[in-house]
């Protein structure tokens, strides 16, 4: 069946091209996805790791935000979700996501991508957690109830 043979060549060809695309795509665009703790451990093992682009997910340190020189330059700190000592400064140039927040009683989870330059993480990408998928916990609601009870009624929205 010469026709089927040609057909098989075509199928294998498509499969090979896609595999090649996936393979090179991953190896050329992948980044390590780490927590601040893991990132700091990596540095200690291998100082040159600072040059490598990484993706980090952590929490925005409350009240750490300040505006940089340009209108769109932002500085803040990121801390590990579980280990308070693992923290580092971040600089991001761009428009802050609406869900970005450094208020003291908010937990804003941030995902940043970039690399270190002179001790500061230069983020090229900043994503903050969209609230819709994470509902308030019972504890948070309970705290809020107590806060609301302490406030005069007209302050309550």
């Amino acid at each position, binding site marked *: 069946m010469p026709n089927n043979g040609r057909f098989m060549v075509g199928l294998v060809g498509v499969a090979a091209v896609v595999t090649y695309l996936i393979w090179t795509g991953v190896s050329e*665009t992948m*980044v*390590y996805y780490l*927590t601040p703790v893991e990132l700091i451990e990596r540095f200690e093992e291998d100082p040159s790791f600072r040059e490598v682009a990484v993706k980090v997910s952590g929490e925005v340190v409350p009240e750490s935000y300040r505006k940089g020189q340009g*209108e769109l330059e932002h500085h803040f700190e990121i801390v590990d979700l579980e280990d308070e000592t693992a923290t580092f400064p971040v600089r991001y140039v761009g428009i802050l996501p609406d869900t970005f927040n450094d208020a003291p009683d908010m937990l804003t989870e941030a*995902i940043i991508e970039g690399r270190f330059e002179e001790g500061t993480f230069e983020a090229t990408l900043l994503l903050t957690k969209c609230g819709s*998928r994470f509902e308030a916990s019972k504890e948070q609601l309970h705290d809020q109830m107590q806060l609301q009870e302490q406030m005069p009624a007209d302050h*309550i*929205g």
Partner: protein
Amino acid sequence: MNIVGELALWTALPVAVWGMALGFMGGRNGRGDLVLSAERAVYATLGLSFLASLGVIDLFLNDRFDYWYPAAYSSRDLGTFFKVSGLWAGQRGSLLFWLLLLNVFSAIAVWSNRRKNREFMPYVIGVLMTIQTFFLVVLLFAEVNPFERLGFTVADGQGMNPQLQNYWMTIHPPTLYLGFTAFTIPFAFAISALLTGRLDSRWITVTRKWILLSWFFLSNGIVFGMRWAYEELGWGGYWFWDPVENASLLPWLTATAFLHSIQIQETRGMLKVWNMGLVIGTFLLTIFATFLTRSGLIESVHTFAENLTIAWIFLGFMFASAAVGLVLVLYRLPKLRSESRIESFLSRESAFLFNNLVLVAATFAVMWGTLLPLLSEGFMGQEIAVGPPFFNRVNLPIGLFLLFLMGVGPVIAWRKASARNLRKNFVWPTSVGLGTGAILWAIGIRHGMALLTFATSAFVMTTIVVEFWKGTRARARIEGEGWLKAFYHLIARNRRRWGGYIVHVGVVMIFTAFAGAPWNTDIEQTLEPGQSAEITSPFGHTYRLTYEGLSTNINDRAQNLRWQLVALMSVEQEGERVGTVQPEKRQYFVGGNRDPNTGNATEVGIRATPYEDLYVILASVPQIETGMSLNDPSAQQAHFRIMIKPLVGLIWSGIMVLSVGGLIGLWPATEKPRAAKSSPGGRRAVAAAGD
């Protein structure tokens, strides 16, 4: 009402189990009385899940903040419209909503087949009720019951995320869910076909409309989500290859493959095993998408321990379904033999097969990229992630190839294309495609991928136009009808085929829009009232935007706004005033009003034209932060990001064209299709007669 709803939810579980058991037993023993009872269980669960949904809406409308779900998602100030949409705003409600939609579709499927396809129905009901039972178990036992009480009452709820208070976000999840749930009907018929051994293409013919309906909703749901991202997220994009977006794309890719491959089975009796694989795979992906979008498993691997119960139940269900499907297919393998084989590389079967292969490859690539953090963590102990560059790199060539096949597939002959067939059908399209490419090259377009996309789009559009032209002309001659009447009858007599072509037109428009992205232009500028910014469009003209000033709206309880800043900009195109844009910054009352920093929302200002969008973001108003009075004009200084998005409007008009085509295909048949149409040569007969 809420008590009734809660009770209804609990009652639904035994009823669904009853329906499941009787469906399977009735099918096995051929007992019509048992099947009848199972059918009634389907209607009963529809009533019960409807009552449960009403109960949840009732909780929202009455501000019942002693219940967890409304306390976490609603607030007293929230508008009625958004309170009702609370039913699908969070995980708890959306699972119930999923169940409700599944119940609606189950009931429609059972009702419309009450007198026909009886050999399939017992097991169809059994499968549908099994899925319902699964969702009921999740709702009742996986810590996601929407009727869960807090044990205390908060004075006001947390409020809805302002980003969700958008029209498109209100309709995006339900539309996707309609697509997901509609696909369970073909899945149930497929399993029933495997169980009964009726493995000809009957189960496909019966569920063809359901497959198309599901695909129609999935396509719309995905584009509604793109529209929401474009308007609400405020960074000028519409697709970010985010895990949640990818999750909705995966079943769409396999459903698209399935929609095409079933035509080969119907016409040529081939690909039976492959189609079983696709229908089971697509169903699993709809469950996977529901799970992924509502569990937060991927985007935050470090904190996913939030609700492990639900993760395990979902994974267990998916594995069990996959295992049952696999075992059934293996058991029925002898009956799933192909009735014919591919005769030529140059044939419609071959084009469709490549379309399928490429779509499944894209599914695999997207899935691989999405799950990579999880897989690499599990197998290498080292989390690795890929972002948009990976997905674009893999999917752009795949998309381009698919686009090309879209031009080839519908007009190449079945079995084996003759040189005459190729010449007749492809001379014009190829010339137009190459010509378009040459013209675009001549006017200076050098972006390779975009150039290829535009040229291929022109090629595909020409094949479609030529098909319509030939069909209409043939009809007009043979039946002696006027052109318009002939065109109408042409579509009406074979809505599946011509509707499909119109769907293709919509898809081509959307692909063309994607290819406009390399010409996205943006500038950033700080302006004081009276000052202007200029931006030149890739089409050559220049816009001049003059910042007229800032207006404020403070403490607007009706809209739930703490404050709202609206920047007014007048727009001139080549010196001629063409309109205004009004980008905004808003802050909503959320979280019980306690934290002034929560609830920020950036509303972009868009001036849309058919060929490009002017997209303006109010990036910041520096003096707001220092608390200066806005009465001072210099305090109104604002920073803007101004972008031009060429061709983006074609996405929104493309989905409308696609929907029209889909509806033409979905419209109930008024006459029995003629026998000639199902034979391989029949489809060409009309066009050939016109030559």
